[in-house]
């Protein structure tokens, strides 16, 4: 393992974090609010990148895990008035259980079949939420009584710190032997198995880790927003946003996923005056990045040949 303090990417990240942490001095509460959401999305995208970039499993359903975390946390808070920390823990737990359930078929199928299984998981969750409307608020959404903080700056710093810590852990994991074995089994399952690595165990671990971070971030985002609805947490458009962010930022980089999310939220905001054209332009840019810079932003920065 190379000394990470010598890579330009490391210093670039430090610089970004420093700039981001002093940002509240200058910018308005509105921008802070946007960035706060972007940071939580960053965690979603990083968790997705671990599964997709390293384990090479197309997960169309990141929002299944996020939604489980968010809705569980929101419902126990609204129904039983448990403190936020307990709710977030329960939400995370629910996401991990969901991740294990989702991983069961994943260990048997791969490629498009796996992609479909994850897609179906999202659709089922979405339908169930609408059907059990008296518990979940249905299509109108769920209102959560508690919030993390009412101060925009405090929320901003919590989100930033959360993203940085999650990012560091995931990045560390991806560079550890676990990450390397995952990458190996993603590229050639049989060969990785022949080298004596337990592919199944590692994929399962990747799932649980991804579910842990997705659920945790989902549960925290609920307490930032104060509401949860299918449109903001579970809908496939949300999943698509996360996938676009991770691919645009650069796969197998973890950091890229976070950058991609911030870029995506920023772009959508800048283009807001364009009205309906905003989504169109963002998708066109994302498509161009996928077609011409398959290694994403980080790939452009480091100019490394595809490894």
């Amino acid at each position, binding site marked *: 393992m190379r000394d990470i303090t010598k890579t330009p990417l490391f210093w670039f990240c430090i610089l970004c974090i420093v700039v981001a942490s002093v940002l509240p001095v200058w910018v308005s509460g509105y921008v802070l609010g946007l960035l706060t959401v972007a940071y939580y999305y960053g965690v979603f995208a990083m968790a997705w990148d671990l599964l*997709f970039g390293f384990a*090479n499993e*197309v997960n169309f359903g990141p929002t299944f895990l996020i939604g489980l975390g968010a809705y569980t946390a929101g419902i126990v808070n609204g129904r039983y008035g448990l403190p936020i920390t307990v709710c977030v823990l329960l939400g995370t737990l629910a996401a991990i259980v969901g991740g294990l359930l989702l991983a*069961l*078929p994943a260990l*048997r*199928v791969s*490629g*498009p*079949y796996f*992609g*479909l*299984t994850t*897609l*179906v*998981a999202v*659709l*089922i969750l979405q*339908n*169930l939420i*609408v*059907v059990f409307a008296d518990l979940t608020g249905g299509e109108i959404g769920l209102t959560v009584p508690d919030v993390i903080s009412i101060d925009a700056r405090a929320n901003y710093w919590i989100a930033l710190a959360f993203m940085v810590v999650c990012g560091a852990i995931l990045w560390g994991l991806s560079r550890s032997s676990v990450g390397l074995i995952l990458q190996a089994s993603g*590229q050639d399952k049989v060969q990785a198995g022949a080298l004596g690595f337990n592919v199944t165990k590692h994929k399962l671990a990747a799932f649980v880790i991804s579910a842990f971070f997705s659920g945790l971030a989902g549960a925290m985002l609920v307490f930032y927003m104060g509401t949860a609805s299918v449109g903001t947490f579970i809908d*496939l*458009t949300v999943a*698509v946003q996360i*996938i*676009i962010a991770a*691919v645009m930022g650069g796969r197998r980089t973890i950091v890229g996923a976070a950058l991609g999310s911030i870029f995506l939220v920023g772009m959508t905001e800048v283009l807001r005056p364009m009205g*309906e*054209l905003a*989504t*169109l332009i963002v*998708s*066109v840019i*994302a*498509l161009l990045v*996928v*077609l011409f810079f*398959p*290694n994403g932003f980080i790939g452009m920065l480091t100019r490394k040949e*595809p490894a």
Partner: protein
Amino acid sequence: MLGLQIIVDGFAISALYALGATGFTLIFGVSGVLNLSHGAIMVSAAVGAWALHDLLAQNAYIGATFGVVLAMIVSLVTYGVIVRPIQVSRSIREEEKEIFILTATLLWGIILQEVIAYLFTNNAKSVVPIVDGVVSVLGVRIPANEIFTAIICWLVIGLLWLLVNRTPAGKAVLAASMNPKGVTLLGIELNWIYIAVWAIYGALAGIAGVLLGMFLGVSSYSVGPLTASAFSIVVLGGLGSVTGSLIAAYVVGYIETITAYLISPAYRFIPSLLLLVVVMYVRPYGLLGRR
């Protein structure tokens, strides 16, 4: 009478599902591409047909034809601009191309959806049916359009079968799906096969889209659900197996119709989704899949 109603309604919707899924499975079988802009191509066809009739005051036949042609054009553009460049790209690793094609076609679908929404709003549009009126069979009132839809769907599927199994061009396509290298060794240009298959796919998706527009109506919001339903039918039947897709289309179509009639339209999609999950656990490669 409810039973008969379910049988008739289910038959028409299943035929439509079958036609939509056939194109999807054809593309996968021949070129190994899962086209996630499938729903967008179907909606483009329906909106094209709608626009020609409602905005430009053409008759229903011209509208429908235009819709199908439009879908073929969009399909060829999808292949030429999105899929082909990724397949031949040298900066994307071979084992990652599948994932890139999935992502890129997904984005392309969103782009088409947004263009449609921008030009023609999100409102639901129904294409003017070619056949009008209601037929009464054994005391059940059936819209003539429903019968027309089922007939056209099966006619097109039948023609496709003849084309693939009984003509030299179709046999070349079949051969390409089995062994692309072998086909090139026989002096057949693989590229042209792919282009032809994408054009056929466009026509199938276009016909399905226009019929759907006449039957249920479409809006730009239908793009995602249409792709998802074609995807799930095809996987349920086994990727690349046309027969499997046809069976799966009927299974899904009837389960949905029965649920909608006997339980509640709100639960319509849940049983078929659950079935899909069960099949994934029990038979990971679908009903008639091969691997």
